């Protein structure tokens, strides 16, 4: 446990002195909050004018409560944009890992690190936690900013309805599980690839299911129900466990030392 803490603290010390990483962790939540709240604001203006509501009800009536009128749609629309914030814990660990894993190799610090009696599980756990924890923190900061921004132009009762168990579960639990998956994929690909940059690029694929979920909801052919969220959590959790085992098994110190140039 002590070595994991050492790695986490070391990663934070090192990576957050890198302006690119720091900027990403500060700027992206702000950008996401601004984009999401801005879009909801524009939509709320349209809804207030009742313009196009008939078309919306025709195409998306199945996925939100029509009886609530425009407020029902806005609640649905705003909650869809909460899904948007799941992108942050999926994207940010990749940014972090790019500097954490690739940076180690570029700085030639990996060999002295691997020469210490640290176990592969400790090293990977330390690096994963170092990436996941600030990513989740950034994600939740973005969500709070978003909710705060919504409260400035939507009724507070409507915003309060967004803070439901289901939404917290989707953003918190599914976001966390996706974040872990992103880091694990980066590590697995890193350990099998001669070029660590490939790992960074391929790990970005983890955003695809989130985009599918986001676009699916916006297009009205997908609804996040409690069963959907729970099933997603079970599937992602199982995948995370399997990928963690695979990452430890495939993290090949020798390849990293001898093949990475």
């Amino acid at each position, binding site marked *: 446990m*002590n*070595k994991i803490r*050492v790695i986490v603290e*070391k990663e934070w*010390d*090192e990576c957050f*002195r*890198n302006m690119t990483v720091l900027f990403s962790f500060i700027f992206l939540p702000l950008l996401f909050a601004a984009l999401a709240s801005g879009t909801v604001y524009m939509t709320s203006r349209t809804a207030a004018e009742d313009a196009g509501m008939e078309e919306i009800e025709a195409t998306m009536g199945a996925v939100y409560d029509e009886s609530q009128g425009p407020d029902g749609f806005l609640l649905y629309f705003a909650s869809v944009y909460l899904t948007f914030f799941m992108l942050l814990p999926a994207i940010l660990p990749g940014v972090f890992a790019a500097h954490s894993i690739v940076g180690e190799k570029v*700085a*030639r*610090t*990996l*060999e*002295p*690190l*691997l*020469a*210490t*009696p*640290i*176990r592969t599980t400790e090293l990977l756990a330390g690096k994963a936690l170092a990436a996941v924890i600030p990513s989740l923190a950034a994600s939740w900061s973005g969500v709070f900013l978003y909710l705060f921004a919504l409260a400035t132009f939507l009724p507070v009762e409507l915003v309060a309805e967004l803070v439901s168990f289901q939404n917290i579960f989707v953003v918190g639990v599914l976001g966390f599980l996706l974040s872990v998956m992103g880091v694990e994929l980066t590590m697995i690909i890193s350990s099998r690839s001669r070029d660590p940059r490939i790992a960074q690029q391929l790990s970005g694929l983890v955003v695809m299911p989130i985009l599918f979920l986001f676009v699916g909801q916006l297009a009205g052919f997908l609804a996040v129900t409690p069963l959907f969220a729970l099933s997603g959590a079970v599937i992602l959790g199982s995948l995370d466990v399997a990928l963690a085992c695979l990452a430890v098994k495939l993290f090949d*110190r*020798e390849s990293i*030392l*001898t093949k990475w140039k």
Partner: protein
Amino acid sequence: MPGRRSGAHERSHQQAELLIRAEQLSRSFGDLLAVDRLDLELARGEVLGFLGPNGAGKTTTVRLLAALISPTSGTAIVNGHDVRNDADSVRRSVGILTETPGFYDRLSVQRNLEIFAALYDVNDPAARVARYLDRLGLTSRRMDPAGTLSKGMKQKLAICRALLHEPPIVFLDEPTSALDPEAARVVRDFIRELQSDGRTILLCTHNLEEADQLCDRVALFRTRLLVVETPDRLRSRLYGREIIFRVRSATDAYAEIIRGLPFATDEFRAGVIRRGDDIQVSSTDPERHNPGIIRALTEAGADILFVTEVRHSLEKIYLEVLAEKVP
């Protein structure tokens, strides 16, 4: 003093505790054989120079002995631990200075060391870090980012990092390469200190004069071990021992006197050559022959100015061995 410990070393090596014992240690990367059936023993407190051309497999050997990579076949016991089955214990027993040591450049010198002290489970890491910073003259730079240090300072920092956990075995890969002469001397002095602390050191270097100065034995390696010997025994094996008697106004008559000494064999006689005022004598046992030679020359009225043993450079020996001229 080069070669000062060669005779005693031979005896002590057989008696001393072995900290490294490699048996038929081999490592391949695909079709490339990097290390071929290496048999090597290092005693406690011994400094072994590991010499060989680029790509000879020296770094791979160090990585094998440090349990960073596994052997394809054979084994090595390092400080009593098998590199195959007990890698963590091996890693605790060794310190490695890599050829191009890297640091967390944005972090301070002290923080860099604290991280590694914690990873090695060092007790009272702050005190240990402070001690090594002081020992290598880095205390005044301890709060500076490691990236701002000069190459020489970084090398010192890398040595601190390799020694923080006070390992009994230290692998030094090109410790003085690209250092200015002053920084190189500081590092060499520190290696001597480590030697006097009783650490076992495997020194990979291309600086053969450095190896000659610092090492009890040298191993010449190119995928396989070509020879491992004390520098002086290597010289003796390759060239015999050559003594120069510088005599004022030397003549061939003095050389003839030496050739006529009772112990002179045909081989000895063939090895007596005069070059100006120098009479060069090749001898298998100069400690026994020299007093007789000096007596005979003095009785013949020669003014002996100097008696010197010729030391062939390790570089010359190295090149001869790599050219496979040495049996």
